[in-house]
């Protein structure tokens, strides 16, 4: 253990390796619990999609798959820029790290912006579940389902909002953290020997992206288009 890094070493660890191993294992454990967290929702989705496939298919056609696909591309690029940021941090390039991280934030914000557009459209069309949801006759017309299936359409949109909303919240939590990392990196907090925070946040960000990779086909691409 060299003294140069002792500022990063927390008092209760023997050395930086132990500290880093612990942090990485901690992050993976956190991601495991995240998987179970989303897993509950995916289970509910699977059951109702199986039960009410026709309605889910019809409602899915109401989502704009082009916006969804565009957002998927945006997120995949943000994962790339995040990976570049981690890479730059590992090489000790402070400014490059900061730049890649800022680019990640920009892409993440674009994604959220598109989500806002989509949500607004749902509000305007009264597709938010609850008492303001379209009355059966209009729902039948708008979504091309039977009037009696309106309740099940509400199930679909409930899941749509719950799943994409939770995903969006995870991104909203990620962005300020990345911003903080960019600022710290600019001021030289990370070195090739110690850049664990960047690496771990990268793991988190990739996880959030992967959730979307599942959400997009499950919600936007049911049946034929």
């Amino acid at each position, binding site marked *: 253990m060299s003294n140069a890094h002792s500022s990063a070493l927390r008092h209760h660890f023997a050395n930086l390796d132990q500290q880093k191993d612990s942090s990485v294992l901690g992050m993976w454990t956190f991601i495991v619990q995240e998987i179970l967290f989303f897993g509950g929702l995916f289970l509910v989705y699977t059951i109702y999609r199986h039960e009410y496939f026709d309605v889910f298919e019809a409602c899915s056609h109401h989502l704009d798959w082009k916006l969804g696909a565009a957002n998927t591309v945006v997120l995949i690029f943000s994962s790339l820029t995040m990976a570049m940021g981690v890479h730059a941090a590992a090489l000790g390039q402070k400014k490059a790290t900061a730049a890649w991280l800022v680019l990640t934030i920009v892409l993440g914000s674009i994604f959220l912006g598109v989500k806002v557009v989509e949500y607004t459209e749902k509000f305007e069309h009264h597709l938010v*579940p609850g008492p303001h949801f379209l009355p059966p006759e209009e729902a039948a017309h708008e979504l091309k389902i039977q009037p009696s299936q309106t*309740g*099940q359409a509400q199930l679909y949109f409930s899941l749509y909002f719950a799943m994409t909303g*939770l995903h969006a919240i995870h991104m909203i939590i990620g962005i300020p953290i990345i911003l903080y990392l960019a600022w710290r990196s600019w001021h030289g907090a990370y070195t090739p020997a110690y850049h664990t925070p960047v690496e771990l946040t990268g793991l988190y960000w990739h996880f959030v992206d992967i959730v979307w990779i599942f959400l997009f086909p499950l919600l936007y691409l049911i049946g034929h288009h």
Partner: protein
Amino acid sequence: MSAVVAAREPQLPKEHYLNADYGVRSWLFTIDHKRIALLYLASVTFMFFLGGMYAAAIRLELVTPPGDMFSSETYNKLFTGHGVLMVFFFLIPTIPGVLGNFLIPLMIGAKDLAFPRINLLSWYCYMAGAGFVLYALVEGGLDTGWTFYTPYSTSFSNTNVILAGVGIFFAGFSSILTGLNFIVTIHKMRAPGLTWFRLPLFVWAHYATSLIQILGTPVIAVTILLVALERGFHFGFFDPARGGDPILFQHLFWFYSHPAVYIMILPAMGVISELVACFSRKKIFGYGFVAGSSLAIAVLGFLVWAHHMFVSGLSVYASLIFSAISFLVAIPSAIKVFNWTATLYRGSVSWQTPMLYAVGFIGLFVIGGLTGLFLAALGLDVHVTDTYFIVAHFHYVMVGSVVMAYMGGLHFWWPKITGRHYPEWWARVSAVIIFVGFNLTFFPQFILGYLGMPRRYHYYPDEFQVLNVMSSAGASILAVGYMIPMVYFAWSMRYGRIATANPWPATGLEWQTASPPPTENFAVTPTVDEEVYDYTRPPKEPTFV
């Protein structure tokens, strides 16, 4: 002899974690796992007595068959408050939060848990959750039962479901963070030479518990979120009017809440292993089997959730599978009990207070565990489920066993935590009172349940009165039993006899440092070169003081 003792009268160390710093801030912003353990101790004790007051009110009401003390609304809020406080804010967090937090770093020879600040955050999550729930209980109450079954909780209850849900969400997050911390700490922070099979069984048990916390708790979190969305924003997930399935909620709920029972009992079993080993001066018989059975219980615990739903209309074949796996949980539980018993064989058995609690635990756990077989047996479960039989069963497991183990552990490690002894005579008396009071409270409930008295009943038929009066009488004895330790623990913190570093004496690294330990736990980094529970010779003098 007395002159010799006087000459070697133990002294408190000059500096230790308790006097390292003073003032409220030094506690509220501490990242020392030992201090955080004491924060937990204070808060769970408060919640335990609060939950106990709810229980007292329930038992008082049930002395007479008609609901003549409280209105039905109030009664329903009482048993809900009792359940929510005890399950989510006492039973689940207590042993990991207090004993686990305090001891795991000490037992594995680490200076702290891997993530001290996350540890503190976990306590704050607990407190935030407690705040929400207490507010919900005070401001209008909650009447869904701790199980929050839909559609009652989503569409019919007029009480603070969302607020309480937020509180439980926070408590769950606290539990997840604790589990995460333990997993990483046990993997990465063990002292040199401390291999997996040299770990105390307490650590094994907490490792298994942490796995459940990580894998189960997120599911209840998302389930509560769905209930809140359905209730607050009229989303539909479990609403039969929209094609949703209220039974699906029960699947999700029990996917966590059944393993949650093992979050409570596994750490308790870990404590019992330590106590039995120390007070019989024997390595735990079948150490590997006892360690492995903790993991087996953790894994099997995830595959049995639907045994709570045998009368809900679950298909017969699904019921068969869940029943069969439920029986399998009995095997690792039996292995533990037999091995603890066998540990005493040819040991050197001492009946000090922690051992009284350990033996009491084994007795109550045998009853609690075996009555679980009644509930796993399909045809019999139909009759006894949702009656006082199940109330008695889970109190034998969750109070009889878990609280006995917690009390035993608290007595055992009290000299380590405070540097002072509790008064032995009072402790033995209260242990006996608790044991007697507990059995008098809950044994009649088995009979009541088989007679058919449903749980959560405010009014009940006259013929159940005698047994209910017995139960209420037992509860008052139990209350006294719990009060006495409160008094003498508080007393002993100032006036108790000063303890040595290893007073019992016991094996384990936590006894190799001062009582109470310094902030960094060990003056020198410990190394381990002997096997676990080596009681064949006197434990070596504390070497890492």
